[in-house]
């Protein structure tokens, strides 16, 4: 029979009542708590009906030395005198139990209990929740900006969708914790005025579900990443885990050595910042050096030497394209790079085709062609996706010192859809110069096609029909 049991802690820090009830149930089943933290550890014990009490000691800290302060030891002595046995302790929280049903509760003054818990929450927990909410909000804004500027491309990438959900859930989770706590505190203070204790409440099932969703999101992000992105994501993930382990290790070593709370906090934060910076710097350097980027499949590398003597490596792709320049026009250029990439989620699927000259061959003036075919799988999103595609060039931004809109004068104007075999068609128009651009947007059913390139200049109806046939037929 196993002597030890581990359990993921999904109770709110302040949920004294929930934790006590849970530990009582576990003790009745023969499991006695012996270690707190993100993962709780129980040891096998004789099944007993025990009373548990969660107490908070505001002056302690996650960063406090392993040897508790004199004050905390005195507090524990008082509890022992009253018949309470200490089962586990971590940071500001301690767990006591008693087999005596008549033992005087550790806290007998409701107002004082609310005040002590608030002192505890103020020291570390509230700041942590605020930091997590801030980071989640920042990431959420970052991901959301991607959706706002190019909705269809974002919808077709599962990792983008999960990223949006993950950061939103994380933000809601930490704000929910804060809101839940303050709501309880307001009601608990009122109850305490009447001398009554207000039980705390959290939602461990919901927290576990949210955590599972967040982890699933990260899993999907890695699974869904392209062959070229995956090594960097995996190295990044391993780096984050290593940094986490190193930070936790630093904290634990300093605690064992009896370093003061302030010193431990300062050193641990410094190590955390230094390692995070080193990790980011290392990944960026490796990415720039191409270490983390595997050779793409079905592509030939080539090197271009620029006037200053600098050289850069590029790839010429040899993918089979549904529509090529040669289908539309005659060309003598035979060094094309033909790249086809696909992405799909439950909401949208996207295929991007690009036939372009190799870098450095600009003088050849060869015709080029590129297109993006989007199938909106979740039909109610179609009009939103179409609106996003129609305003793609106006939404296109470059942020360098400040945000620029280099293509703000380019607008799609509706044109005759019949030659394309499309339901609707638009052509890009430059409002400033009054010129038509060789970029079209076509729709049929829930498919949206954007096609552009020099190969489209002076298109005849037969060529338009061919493009429609190749890119619009599902």
């Amino acid at each position: 029979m196993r002597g030890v049991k581990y359990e993921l802690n999904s109770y709110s820090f302040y949920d004294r009542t929930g934790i006590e009830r849970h530990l009582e149930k576990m003790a009745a089943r023969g499991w006695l708590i012996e270690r707190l933290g993100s993962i709780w550890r129980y040891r096998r014990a004789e099944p007993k009906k025990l009373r548990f009490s969660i107490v908070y000691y505001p002056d302690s800290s996650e960063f406090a030395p392993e040897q508790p302060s004199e004050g905390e030891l005195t507090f524990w002595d008082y509890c022992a005198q009253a018949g309470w046995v200490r089962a586990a302790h971590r940071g500001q929280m301690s767990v006591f139990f008693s087999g005596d049903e008549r033992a005087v509760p550790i806290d007998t003054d409701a107002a004082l209990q609310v005040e002590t818990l608030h002192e505890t929450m103020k020291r570390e927990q509230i700041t942590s929740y605020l930091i997590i909410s801030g980071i989640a909000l920042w990431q959420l804004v970052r991901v959301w900006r991607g959706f706002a500027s190019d909705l269809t491309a974002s919808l077709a990438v599962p990792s983008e969708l999960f990223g949006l959900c993950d950061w939103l859930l994380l933000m809601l989770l930490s704000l929910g914790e804060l809101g839940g706590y303050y709501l309880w505190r307001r009601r608990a203070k009122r109850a305490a005025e009447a001398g009554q204790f207000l039980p705390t409440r959290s939602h461990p099932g919901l927290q576990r579900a949210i955590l599972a969703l967040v982890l699933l999101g990260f899993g999907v992000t890695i699974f869904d990443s392209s062959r070229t992105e995956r090594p960097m994501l995996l190295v990044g993930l391993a780096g984050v885990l290593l940094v986490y382990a190193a930070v936790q290790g630093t904290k634990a070593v300093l605690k064992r050595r009896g370093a003061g709370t302030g010193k431990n906090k300062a050193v641990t934060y410094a190590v955390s910042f230094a390692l995070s910076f080193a990790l980011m710097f290392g990944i960026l350097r490796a990415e720039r050096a191409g270490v983390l980027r595997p050779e793409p499949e079905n592509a030939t590398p080539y090197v271009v030497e620029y006037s200053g003597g600098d050289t850069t490596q590029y790839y010429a792709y040899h993918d089979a394209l549904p529509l090529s320049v040669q289908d539309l026009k005659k060309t003598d250029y035979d060094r094309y790079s033909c790249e086809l990439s696909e992405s799909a989620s439950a909401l949208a699927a996207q295929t991007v085709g690009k036939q372009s000259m190799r870098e450095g061959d600009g003088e050849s003036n060869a015709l080029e062609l590129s297109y993006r075919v989007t199938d909106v799988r979740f039909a109610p999103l179609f009009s939103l996706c179409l609106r996003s595609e129609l305003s793609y060039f106006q939404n296109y931004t470059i942020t360098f010192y400040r945000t620029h809109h280099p293509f703000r004068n380019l607008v799609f104007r509706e044109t005759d859809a019949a030659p394309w075999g499309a339901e609707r068609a638009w052509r890009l128009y430059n409002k400033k110069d009054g010129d038509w651009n060789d970029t079209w947007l076509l729709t049929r059913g829930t498919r949206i096609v954007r096609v552009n390139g020099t190969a489209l200049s002076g298109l005849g109806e037969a060529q338009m029909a061919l493009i429609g046939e190749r890119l619009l037929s599902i």
Partner: protein
Amino acid sequence: MAREKFGTLTEQMFYILLALRDECCGMDVMARVSELTGGRVAVGPGTLYNLLEQFAAAGYIEETRAEGRRRSYRLTAAGRTLLENEVERLRALLCDYERLMREEK
């Protein structure tokens, strides 16, 4: 701030101060309060620890002796005044009650 905080005393605050009119070890206050009240008022160890800290910080009690972690405390003059003020307040309540109830009869 402290005076405002202890403007009126809870039963537990009152009896802890009363128990400390003679020097007493912090840990023994729980038992002494129970004795003083015939078991009617019980002070939990967490509440006792926090109140002793707050009373000491406000100057209502003072530490008199420390043997290891066993610390003894005693009421100060300020603590005695606080206790007396509370008794006056309670006495006034009682007087009002008795006068009004007598008038009713």
